[in-house]
């Protein structure tokens, strides 16, 4: 059908007018003599993405493909009494309808359904029984020859239910006193210390308030999709899945369906956004694999945007904070309690209140994390889970305290600056937060802030300034990598990690290039495939440190072999040199002590046997060293808002975000991480809210028209500063991970700026006009 397409005419790129643009204007090749790491290289996968050639999970052209469309429950609680599929099956082209009535046998124990991001409890099992546990629960899958037929068939499935009234009210769950249990990876039970109640009672100045937010949904742009390709050589599947971790999807389907890892290869080279939504296997994966195994055919299941409101989300929560201080601002007591939503079947936990025990120096701290059970699907990690909401409360309360003390909010934070992590009584591996405050304030012009609210007014427009602090973990995990150097000087590096837009492909290529002094275009980095060496899912800002360390290790192992070959060269100037005595740069191995003594990598490789050089490594964190320190990334964020007093509308006019994130591997992609996260912070502050209908237990604004996220017009210029921070403890690269830190503090800074503009304190997100008027 198609032949070579005619191209539209193009014109050359005009030079930008000087002084009108920010950012990195050129895409010129980088000087090969300079180390790649730390350079603002453009994304190595950029061309594929702008040409529409990057293949996402629903885009693999699989022969004889069937399409599955999910039927969602019309009720939030109760049970199915009748499921009539006759009309659907009568449509020519509809191949099958699957449900709890005709599913194959499934494992009995909860452990078969657990994945690497499972909370404690009993994971949801699709199609397991007639019981309905949450709104829009998947209850049937209609499989047909085309997407349109499957969708039509799904509309003909007639379901009868016995419906019960769902309980989705969070505020009355304080009385249940359900302490959040430990057991979910990453969750640590908050620890109290000192005598907070006494200290609060005695404090000269005290603030106490309740902060609220509703559920929020990740809404990555790509719809959740799995293409399960049936390979006609036995029971084997290639599974193209939208996931943040192929290993995690693989372990789930192998356990649930009793497949070997060879029978279930999971592939995910490109992911159309994750933000946490892809940390757990979503039900389209289960359904596509079930249908493919039952029909022995290839099946693609894509959820609708509406159905993407039927699984994990940032949990709604109610937070209560009390802060007490001396008249000079010295914090004497902190109390922070949270009541957070969870499902009836799992205990979702995220670190929400613990930050209040470590961000500022204080000896008397009372922390508590309670859960409230509701008839909803389990919440799920969403960008900076726990901290994004916990810091909204803490950093708003700090601003309220500053107001009451008649003290500058930045001054109050400096006054209580924590030199040591009191939660675990350990020093920080590094903490250049003071420099974030200093450089951020200077860039923003914070010194010119008028202390009183409503001090800047022009017509009906009030201008306000606010600031807040951000903090997130810097973790390193275990990961493996493999590298292959071919005699033509090309290096391939592989690890089953992900690139959800974070820049993994690019920074790993840069690290690999530097180990061997090769140009970036000599490197191929492959990820997102379970046949590659295992790596954890991409989440929690851990990938740069975790996979980066493995990549550096494995490429250094290759470099050592190349050095040995270089020493075989006749009259080699590198004879007797140790690996530490040389550097690999610009295609050469160079003696550090005498840069004129070199052997080219090409010459060295010519000494080999003509076979590729291959190495495999598993990199582990140095826990002995790391565990002696508190390891965190910090930020300070400053915002200016304009509020229209007649309309109550809030617009963010500018943002300065100063980050202490250790070593920056690529300032271009790193800046993008921060920009994007600041956009998330603005969106969280002003737009995002999943509204839960109290009578029916459903999220009623389940579309991108009604669930508002920031659009281009909402976003002002954002200034990102990376302050210098050297950290030799956090991991061998010294990089702290930047996926979450940019969002932290932004919503509080905006709420604080709205107060500064209007004198009105908004304690419930999002800050919509009804709350400002």
């Amino acid at each position: 059908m198609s032949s070579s397409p005619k191209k539209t005419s193009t014109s050359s790129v005009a030079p930008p007018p000087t002084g009108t643009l920010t950012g990195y204007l050129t895409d010129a090749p980088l000087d090969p003599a300079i180390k790649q790491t730390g350079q603002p290289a453009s994304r190595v996968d950029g061309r594929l993405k702008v040409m529409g050639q990057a293949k996402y999970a629903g885009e693999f052209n699989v022969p004889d493909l069937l399409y599955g469309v999910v039927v969602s429950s019309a009720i939030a609680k109760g049970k199915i009494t009748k499921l009539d599929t006759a009309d659907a099956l009568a449509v020519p082209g509809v191949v099958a309808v699957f449900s709890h009535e005709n599913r194959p046998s499934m494992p009995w124990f909860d452990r078969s359904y657990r994945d690497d991001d499972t909370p404690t409890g009993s994971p949801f099992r699709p199609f397991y029984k007639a019981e309905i546990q949450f709104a829009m629960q998947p209850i049937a899958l209609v499989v047909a020859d085309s997407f349109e037929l499957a969708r039509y068939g799904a509309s003909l499935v007639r379901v009868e239910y016995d419906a019960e009234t769902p309980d989705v009210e969070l505020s009355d769950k304080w009385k249940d006193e359900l302490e959040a249990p430990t057991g979910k990876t990453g969750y640590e039970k908050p620890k109290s210390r000192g005598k907070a109640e006494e200290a609060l009672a005695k404090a000269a100045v005290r603030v106490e308030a309740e902060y609220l937010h509703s559920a929020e949904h990740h809404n990555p742009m790509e719809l959740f999709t799995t293409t399960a390709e049936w390979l006609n050589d036995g029971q084997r599947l290639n599974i193209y899945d939208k996931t943040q971790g192929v290993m995690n999807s693989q372990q789930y389907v192998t356990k649930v369906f009793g497949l070997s890892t060879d029978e279930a290869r999971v592939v995910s080279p490109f992911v159309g956004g994750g933000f946490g939504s892809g940390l757990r296997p979503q039900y389209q994966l289960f359904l596509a694999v079930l249908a493919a195994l039952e029909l022995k055919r290839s099946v693609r299941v894509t959820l609708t945007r509406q159905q993407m409101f039927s699984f994990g989300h940032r949990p709604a929560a109610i937070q209560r904070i009390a802060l007490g201080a001396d008249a000079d601002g010295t914090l004497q007591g902190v109390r922070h309690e949270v009541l957070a939503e969870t499902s009836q079947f799992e205990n979702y936990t995220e670190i929400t209140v613990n930050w209040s025990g470590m961000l500022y120096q204080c000896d008397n701290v009372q922390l508590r994390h309670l859960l409230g059970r509701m008839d909803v699907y389990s919440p799920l990690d969403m960008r900076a889970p726990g901290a994004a909401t916990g810091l909204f409360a803490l950093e708003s309360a700090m601003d309220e305290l500053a107001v009451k003390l008649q003290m500058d909010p930045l001054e109050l934070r400096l006054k209580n600056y924590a030199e040591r992590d009191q939660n675990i009584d350990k020093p920080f591996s590094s903490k250049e937060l003071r420099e974030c405050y200093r450089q951020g304030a200077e860039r923003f012009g914070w010194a010119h802030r008028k202390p009183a609210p409503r001090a800047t007014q022009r017509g009906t427009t009030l201008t306000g300034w606010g600031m807040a602090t951000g903090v997130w973990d810097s973790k390193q995990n275990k990961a493996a990598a493999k590298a292959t150097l071919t005699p033509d000087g090309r290096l391939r590096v592989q690890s089953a990690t992900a690139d959800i837009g974070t820049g993994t492909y690019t920074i790993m290529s840069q690290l690999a290039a530097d180990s061997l002094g090769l140009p970036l275009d000599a490197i191929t980095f492959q990820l997102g495939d379970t046949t590659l060496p295992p790596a954890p899912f991409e989440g929690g800002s851990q990938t740069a440190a975790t996979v980066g360390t493995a990549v550096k290790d494995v490429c250094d192992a290759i470099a050592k072999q190349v050095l040995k070959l270089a020493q075989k060269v006749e009259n080699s100037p590198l004879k007797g040199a140790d690996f530490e005595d040389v550097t690999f740069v610009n295609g050469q191995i160079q003696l550090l002590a005498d840069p004129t003594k070199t052997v080219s990598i090409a010459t060295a490789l010519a000494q080999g046997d003509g076979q590729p050089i291959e190495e495999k490594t598993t990199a582990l964190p140095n826990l002995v060293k790391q565990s002696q320190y508190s390891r965190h990334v910090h930020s300070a964020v400053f915002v200016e808002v304009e509020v229209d007093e007649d309309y109550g509308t809030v617009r963010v006019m500018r943002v300065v975000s100063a980050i202490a994130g250790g070593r920056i591997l690529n300032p271009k992609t790193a800046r993008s991480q921060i920009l994007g996260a600041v956009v998330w912070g603005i969106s969280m502050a002003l737009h995002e809210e999943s509204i839960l209908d109290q009578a029916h237990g459903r999220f009623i604004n389940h579309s991108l028209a009604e669930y508002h996220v920031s659009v281009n017009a909402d976003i002002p210029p954002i200034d990102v500063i990376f302050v210098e921070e050297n950290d030799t403890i956090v991991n061998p690269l010294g990089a702290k991970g930047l996926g979450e830190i940019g969002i932290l503090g932004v919503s509080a800074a905006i709420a604080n700026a709205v107060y500064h503009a209007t004198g009105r304190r908004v304690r419930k997100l999002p800050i919509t006009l009804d709350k400002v008027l």
Partner: protein
Amino acid sequence: MPQHVISPNRPVQAAALPPPTAAVTLTINGTAHRLEVAPWVSLLDALRDYLDLTGTKKGCDHGQCGACTVLVNGKRINSCLTLAVMKDGAEITTIEGLANGEELHPFQAAFVAHDAFQCGYCTPGQICSAVGLQQEGRVRTTDDIRELMSGNICRCGAYPNIVDAIAEVMQTPRPAPAS
């Protein structure tokens, strides 16, 4: 007491047959494609599922996100909101048709240089939208770009870089700062 609920609560459609197909010719990136499609096939699904032109993305299927933006007779539209049979004879340009062989279209090159995307899923729609925007001739300052590109959601939040990339190609000045 549980309440009895039936969904969908409407008369059973006995022996409901799918609609008959119709012939349609779409000229996509300069090549004529003749398709036999049912009238319920959207232009977006025709591109992705029937022609394997998966550069055009589906983000909502409801005209709310802009990921499916293509150019039809030079104008940017949401391809999920139009049916393939309605575009018989139309000239359609998708992301796959913008580059000249290996040479990127100026917007494509600028998006790479400015890192105007992260996950890349909204990117084809953003770039097609930018091409349409340029042809509309309505942009005076970068604020106009922000407003007129607001039909294309980028959940990764690359907006500042998207504006920079488009402004570079269109040589758009920033608005004068308020005094």
